[in-house]
């Protein structure tokens, strides 16, 4: 049987990431996820959407796919932007930011990786796909 999926198409407009989190909350309830898991999924989605909105350098829509699996939820955030090199993204540390000139932002990837069970990035000059997986605790 085909796995149930939910697909969203978001324009790059302020706060559109909240549409993704509202959808995620409905799916989390359907899957009987814990409140903690639901919050983690929403936060990771927000950060992935913001990265897509801010760094894709395009006006093209961002697509979000939710794949409901028996033992996990997989979310893909797909942009059609210029891509990025993950190896050039530094791991942020607050100690390096407070009292120093370093910009205070740049936490998105770190948060996504901490909050999800697995994260994969595929990126090239035609766009970026972030695939995030949350395993269901039985």
């Amino acid at each position, binding site marked *: 049987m085909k796995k149930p999926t939910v697909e969203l198409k978001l324009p790059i407009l302020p*706060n559109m990431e909240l549409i993704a989190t509202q959808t995620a909350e409905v799916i989390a309830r359907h899957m009987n996820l814990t409140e903690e898991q639901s*919050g*983690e999924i929403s936060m990771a989605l*927000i950060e992935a959407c913001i990265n897509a909105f801010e760094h894709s350098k395009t006006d093209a829509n961002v697509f979000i796919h939710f794949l409901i699996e028996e033992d996990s939820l997989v979310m893909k955030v797909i942009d059609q932007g210029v891509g990025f090199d993950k190896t050039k993204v530094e791991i942020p540390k607050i100690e390096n930011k*407070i*009292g120093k000139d370093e910009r*205070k*932002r740049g936490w998105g990837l*770190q948060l996504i990786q901490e909050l999800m069970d697995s994260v994969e990035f595929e990126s090239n000059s035609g766009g970026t796909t972030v695939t995030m997986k949350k395993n269901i605790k039985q």
Partner: protein
Amino acid sequence: MNTFIKSVKEENQIIIIETNGYLNNEGGEAISAICYEKIKIGHHKFLINMAGTKVVNSIGVSILIEIIEKLQEVDGRIGYYNLAPIVVKTFNIMGLTKYSTVFTTEEEAVGTL
């Protein structure tokens, strides 16, 4: 008018800011505007009641890091209470809890900060 700031009050020389809604860049800037204005007139202690803020993003939280940095210059302090569990987790991951304090209740926060 910015609806993110629900109220601002003072108790025991602590400025208490109650927020409502999504802590994004605009929400963060609304908080920082109040803090910086109050720092200018001599206030050094701030509490943020986040009972009405269930959703945050890292840009909004980064502005709280800027406030912490500003408060270090004046030997000030900031704390938060009524946080949703995912907001506490986000603050922990970003390291805010190394430089500021999460409290459970207003009573505890006002008595401890």
